[in-house]
């Protein structure tokens, strides 16, 4: 563990604070009125601290609340997170929303229901056990006796949740566990104004940032004179942070282009040589730590050993929408509208950069385009705040360009994973050594001493963004996420090398280190299976003690017709398995690929166990999406750069999977309504990467060692074989 001290991993690690344990985020946000409000007109508002990122969480949370309160889903309104009143649930990340927020809401609603029924019993004299709730109305033996709505104004929820109250048993659930249609989708298919991009506040101005031409470049001269900027656009400068603001968006855009030509920057080589990135990773300044080490004395270490080094370049979030925020300063108070994953964390770092008290900043969440981790959402919020400070009382909307989105958002770090594994003569794993080299996978705002917002490093007196860190393994880990194989291995040592320099800013992207670690583990398992003359699925099953793991693996193999598959020229099948974070959802994927001029993924079969699925269709949607993200990462994605700048700053230079390339996907959910619900957004990504690598070996007989699996990296693997 290399998290260091003083880091705030709220939401990742539950504090032991001596108070009676309450489920999920309710433990640290105990007041019921913070979560739920009943209205006299028959509506309920719930206030999750987790936010909608395109993953469908609002719907799942509304389902949980409706079920526990015994009201119809249509009565539930969801108030999006905002400081200072929303529960502080840290960051919406790590596939934890259903675990942290769903369990909190379920328990809070069970409390609210119990309190209301108790009051109704006292008022009416009907014994508590004779009362039941039907769509919010309380019924006694003789008929209706009251409702949540009639008691809405009684401030009954101004109290802390009690751990004594029990939520309904799984068999009594009617709404959670069904595929309710997503609450947000109608707005999205009718083109309604739902995103932060669509906010139109009275008097709102539009701004664009003029980014430096190179990482860390300093603004040395802004040439005055020349024709005035279009639309009366005004220049806003703070140190090397430069922006323009205008009444009309097209004027701001044109002015930014014009202004860029008037700036002289001082730039230098700050980035490693992309062609020798693996060497750079090995040599860069670092700190070493041990993730896990265990030894068994009675096991012979002789046998078949395989050693492989796996490399992945940095990859980008590459959301289809660019980052956007709106900010307004009035009378020393800052209001920010943002698609950040954590409104409180963002507030903390805004306060640091702007040097004002956090209490003077209101941060409101508004949906953005799909979010797959720590992208530029927080950064653009600071950009908007910096520009808005120059035009008091006027809201300012900043929209990033595609080049900013792909060139300046935090990336998932380049990684090297070296594995050395030994199996005995009978083909049983006896030892596993692994060394991970990577930048840290978290530089989220609000967690470190120094702020981590991009433009905070460019303003006058700004400090560079500190090198990223890794959350502890107990909180899911970062680079080391999923590095510990779930397979039975007597001798195990996993080392983690975190780089202490960060030429390219890195942070959390869907799965963090898991895609590379799972690919490395599963490829090594395939290799050992081949040496043992065993079937890859059978070889894995033989090393798995966890029945839920075995079940998803068997299910995916069965769906794909794995056992009876026929060998076809140029076609391969591979398998990948992981339990996300070794503590969350279980997922197995079988991939079929066609090896043509390039490798094309043709089919995926996914089996998953997420415990209780609050919304099975929503889970399937997340599994499909995560898997397709994995295919895209495996086959296409790499951040490109020269010694000064990121060069993959358009869709031409940073291609992602397109409609013509997307595999057909089949999913199967193993239903366990009696088990705790687990997040589904990330569990399919890493096994999909691994399955594609296995399928390439199956088709071409070559073990790929570098992502993405393009003709170039496949040819290099063939040469090395």
């Amino acid at each position, binding site marked *: 563990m290399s998290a260091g001290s003083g880091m705030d991993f709220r939401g990742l690690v539950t504090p032991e604070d001596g108070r009676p344990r309450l489920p999920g985020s309710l433990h640290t946000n105990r007041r019921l009125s913070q979560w739920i409000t009943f209205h006299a007109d028959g509506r309920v508002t719930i206030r999750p601290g987790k936010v909608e990122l395109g993953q469908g969480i609002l719907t799942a949370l509304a389902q949980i609340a409706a079920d526990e309160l015994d009201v119809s889903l249509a009565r539930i309104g969801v108030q999006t997170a905002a400081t200072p009143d929303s529960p502080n649930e840290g960051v919406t990340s790590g596939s934890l929303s259903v675990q942290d927020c769903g369990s909190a809401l379920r328990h809070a609603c069970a409390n609210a229901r119990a309190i209301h029924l108790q009051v109704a019993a006292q008022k009416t004299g009907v014994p508590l056990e004779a009362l039941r709730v039907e769509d919010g109305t309380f019924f006694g033996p003789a008929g209706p006796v009251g409702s949540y709505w009639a008691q809405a104004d009684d401030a009954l929820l101004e109290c802390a949740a009690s751990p004594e109250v029990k939520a309904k048993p799984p068999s009594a659930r009617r709404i959670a566990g069904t595929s309710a249609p997503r609450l947000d989708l*109608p707005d999205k298919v009718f083109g309604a104004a739902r995103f932060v991009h669509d906010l139109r506040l009275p008097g709102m101005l539009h701004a664009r940032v003029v980014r430096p031409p190179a990482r860390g470049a300093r603004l040395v001269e802004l040439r005055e004179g020349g024709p005035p900027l279009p639309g009366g656009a005004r220049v806003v400068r703070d140190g090397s942070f430069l922006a323009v603001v205008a009444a009309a968006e097209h004027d701001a855009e044109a002015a930014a282009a014009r202004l860029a030509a008037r700036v002289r920057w001082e730039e230098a080589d700050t980035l490693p040589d992309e062609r020798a990135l693996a060497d750079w990773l090995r040599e860069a300044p670092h700190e070493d730590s041990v993730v896990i080490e265990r030894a068994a004395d009675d096991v012979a270490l002789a046998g078949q050993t395989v050693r492989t080094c796996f490399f992945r370049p940095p990859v980008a979030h590459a959301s289809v*929408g660019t980052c956007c925020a709106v900010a307004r300063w009035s009378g020393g108070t800052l209001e920010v509208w943002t698609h950040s994953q954590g409104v409180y964390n963002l507030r903390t770092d805004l306060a640091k950069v702007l040097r004002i008290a956090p209490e003077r900043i209101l941060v409101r969440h508004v949906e953005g385009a799909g979010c797959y981790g720590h992208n530029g959402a927080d950064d653009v919020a600071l950009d908007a705040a910096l520009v808005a400070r120059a035009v008091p009382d006027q809201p300012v909307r900043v929209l990033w360009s595609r080049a900013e989105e792909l060139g300046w958002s935090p990336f998932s770090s380049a990684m090297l994973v070296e594995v050395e594994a030994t199996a005995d003569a009978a083909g049983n794993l006896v030892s596993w050594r692994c060394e991970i080299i990577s930048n840290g996978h978290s530089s989220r705002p609000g967690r470190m001493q120094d702020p981590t917002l991009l433009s905070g490093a460019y303003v006058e007196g700004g400090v560079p963004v500190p090198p990223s860190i890794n959350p502890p393994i107990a909180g899911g880990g970062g680079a080391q996420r999923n590095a510990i194989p779930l397979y039975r291995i007597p001798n195990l040592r996993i080392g983690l090398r975190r780089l202490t320099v960060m030429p390219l800013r890195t942070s959390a992207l869907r799965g963090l280190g898991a895609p590379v670690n799972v690919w490395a583990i599963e490829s090594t398992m395939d290799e050992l299976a081949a040496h043992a003359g065993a079937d890859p699925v059978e070889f894995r099953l033989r090393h798995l003690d966890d029945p839920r793991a075995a079940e998803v693996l068997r299910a995916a193999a069965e769906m794909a017709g794995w056992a009876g598959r026929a060998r076809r020229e140029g076609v391969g099948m591979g398998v990948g398995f992981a339990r996300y974070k070794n503590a969350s959802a279980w997922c197995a994927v079988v991939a079929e690929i066609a090896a043509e001029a390039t490798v094309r993924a043709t089919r995926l079969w996914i089996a998953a166990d997420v415990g209780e699925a609050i919304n099975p269709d929503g889970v399937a949607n997340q599994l499909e999406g995560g898997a397709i993200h994995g295919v895209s990462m495996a086959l296409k994605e790499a951040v490109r750069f020269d010694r000064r700048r990121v060069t993959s700053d*358009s869709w031409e230079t940073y291609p992602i999977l397109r409609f013509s390339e997307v595999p057909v996907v089949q999913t199967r959910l193993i239903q366990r309504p009696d088990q705790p619900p687990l997040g589904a957004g990330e569990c399919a990504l890493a096994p999909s990467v691994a399955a594609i690598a296995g399928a390439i070996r199956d088709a071409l007989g070559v073990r790929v060692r570098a992502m993405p699996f393009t003709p170039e990296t496949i040819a290099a693997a063939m040469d090395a074989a």
Partner: protein
Amino acid sequence: MTTRFTLNGTAVSVDLPGEVSLLHALRGPLGLSGPRYGCGAEQCGTCMVLVEGTPRYACTLALDAVEGKAVRTVEGLGTPEAPHPLQAAFLAEQAGQCGFCLPGILVSAAALLDRDPDPDDAAIRAALDPHLCRCGSHNRIIRAVRRAARAMREGRAAA
């Protein structure tokens, strides 16, 4: 400078320089939200609109190029009360996650179904290839387009 054209069946006029993009006009003075900026370079399809029934990238199309023409956006396909069969099908298939790409995809799909009432999967994939979806809703979107095509054919047969 004033540009006049038909937007979703209604005559509109916009006072902006003719070289300003149609996208800025639609999102700015015309107040629409469906067409969206994604790249500004015809590489993602987020801004797609129909001009005289043909999909065009609004991010690079100059406003004066649509003078006198008919422009249709996702807002012109249907409403919650009277959805286009594609919109109904996207909801039925739950074909979307973040939904940022959907307005562009919907208008391209509408153009496809206008010229081919019974497209196969390959034709749907080809028609939607200019569009990026990062959430991975592609297969649901393809199913939804097929469902809408079926509904429209059945609707025509019944009429």
